[in-house]
């Protein structure tokens, strides 16, 4: 069996808990630095994005109704699964140009990030909710609720940690997400779908697309069924486009600018708050 041919993986999208190819049938050739490896990456289309939003919308009611504790468990489970696939992600990060040490660091930090938000998933409500003093006979309290369906443009320079850092706080807060993976380093992002798929994350809660940002950003920001958009990048024109388009249906715009996700203090419960709505209730008392 010395002449055995290796079985190559087909890199596909992750939509609705399934791994479809792009409906458009288009591919992008991705090459590593020394051009020794070429991988065909799906060039996702607006219709792939539309399908992903449909599944994210469908998944929203179920996911946001889960108990905070259960969402924490599932985030923790994603961390466990990533830990178990360390070898695979090491190889992919190195293929994408990381040194062995950097790759190991990135995996460690990604797992830690998941565990961090798993911890916060059943605690952010307590710190962001409050009882408000009012001068009438009402018990007045404010709680946070998930914003809804979130579209996100992942950081371009961080394939795994960047992606995980965007997804974790969004789903910890009960939202569902459609995220466009890094164009430069897409390999790990695609494989992360496999981790999600084995982690009790319901289909549709996280959808991962690959493709060209310039082509898709318009649809990410105009789709009326998207409630918030997260943009990671420094391009002023893209930023302006997103802000303008977001005004169509008043999407929340979250912008992570020059964010270094590898730093010690890069995570925060306020990232969960970025995709939360504030609901205040006036409840009559003393009548």
């Amino acid at each position, binding site marked *: 069996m010395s002449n055995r041919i290796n079985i190559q993986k087909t890199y596909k999208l992750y939509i609705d808990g399934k791994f479809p190819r792009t409906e458009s049938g288009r591919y992008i050739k991705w090459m590593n630095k020394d051009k020794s490896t070429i991988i065909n990456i799906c060039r996702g289309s607006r219709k792939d994005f539309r399908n992903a*939003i449909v599944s994210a919308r469908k998944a929203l009611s179920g996911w946001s109704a889960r108990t905070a504790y259960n969402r924490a468990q599932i985030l923790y489970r994603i961390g466990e699964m990533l830990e178990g696939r360390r070898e695979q992600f090491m190889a992919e990060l190195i293929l994408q140009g990381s040194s062995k040490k950097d790759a190991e660091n990135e995996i460690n930090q990604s797992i830690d990030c998941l565990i961090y938000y798993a911890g916060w998933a059943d605690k952010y409500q307590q710190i962001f909710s409050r009882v408000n003093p009012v001068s009438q006979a009402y018990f007045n309290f404010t709680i946070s609720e998930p914003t809804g369906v979130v579209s996100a443009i992942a950081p371009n320079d961080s394939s795994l940690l960047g992606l995980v850092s965007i997804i974790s706080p969004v789903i910890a807060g009960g939202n569902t997400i459609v995220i466009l993976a890094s164009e430069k380093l897409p390999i790990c992002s695609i494989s992360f779908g496999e981790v999600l798929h084995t982690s009790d994350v319901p289909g549709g809660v996280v959808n991962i697309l690959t493709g060209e940002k310039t082509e898709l950003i318009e*649809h990410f920001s105009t*789709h*009326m*069924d998207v409630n918030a958009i997260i943009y990671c990048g420094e391009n002023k024109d893209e930023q302006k486009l997103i802000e303008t388009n977001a005004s169509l*249906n008043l999407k929340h715009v979250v912008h992570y600018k020059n964010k270094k996700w590898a730093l010690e203090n890069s995570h925060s419960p306020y990232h969960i708050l970025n995709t939360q709505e504030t609901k205040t209730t006036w409840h009559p008392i003393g009548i």
Partner: protein
Amino acid sequence: MYNQTIDQINTQERVARLFSRSIKKESKVQALHLALSMIDLTTLEGKDSPGKVKQLCYKASHLHDNFPNLPHVAAICVYPPMVSIAKKALEGTKINVASVATAFPSGMANLQAKLEEVKSVVNEGADEIDMVISRGKFLSGEYQYVSDEITQVKEACGKAHLKVILETGELVTLDNVRLASDIAMKAGADFIKTSTGKVSPSATPPVVLTMLEAIRDFNNKTGKQIGMKPAGGIGTAKQAIQYLVMINETLGSDWLSPNLFRFGASSLANDILMQIVKQSTGNYQSKDYFSID
């Protein structure tokens, strides 16, 4: 009667070929408008209330007010006790009121009770009657009974149009679907309709194609134009357009009209509206910005 067996594989392949047609841009907009005008906006639930019916009637005549030049739906389809409410709510519009009758959805009642139900809803102003056939009798081979029943219901309808629901999900085979279609048309149906929407599977493409072919053959033989109404499970604009392709290819453009083709659906209207707005603005739409159906 049709005495050939239906070739199931062939039917499926023909459906697959017809459904792969691509209808884009202006043709798509035109198809969407047409499909919208063919909808029987339906609410058939045990928990229906006068309020719900009134809301649906309002929806029928005001599909999406900030978007002008939209057609109105063909009819509202409700349970018998809601007919007078719907009739009143739709006063002054050209929207018909259709009522299910004859012990919908099971059809399990004696003939006398069925006929009285039909007469009373026609009296209350129903323009169209959706009756169910007795599937138990049909499956046990009592075709004459089924046929007679339809004839008598048709008589009881008077001026009202009669749609005959075959409930194809319970007829098991395409041969049965074909036979039931032939019986219904011969017995006087103005429309034949796939399903009640209460049984799964409801309208499947092979079943619809089989019924359309029955209508075509009946038309060739007698010159009568019988209408068709697939119902249940049609929720997207894409499916609606696929069915329009199927009718046009099977029966010709005469049938591309609300007079001879209807969709029985509750959530289809909003999906079509979202597509129409998408075609005009270029942006994908959200249900949040359309009235509840």
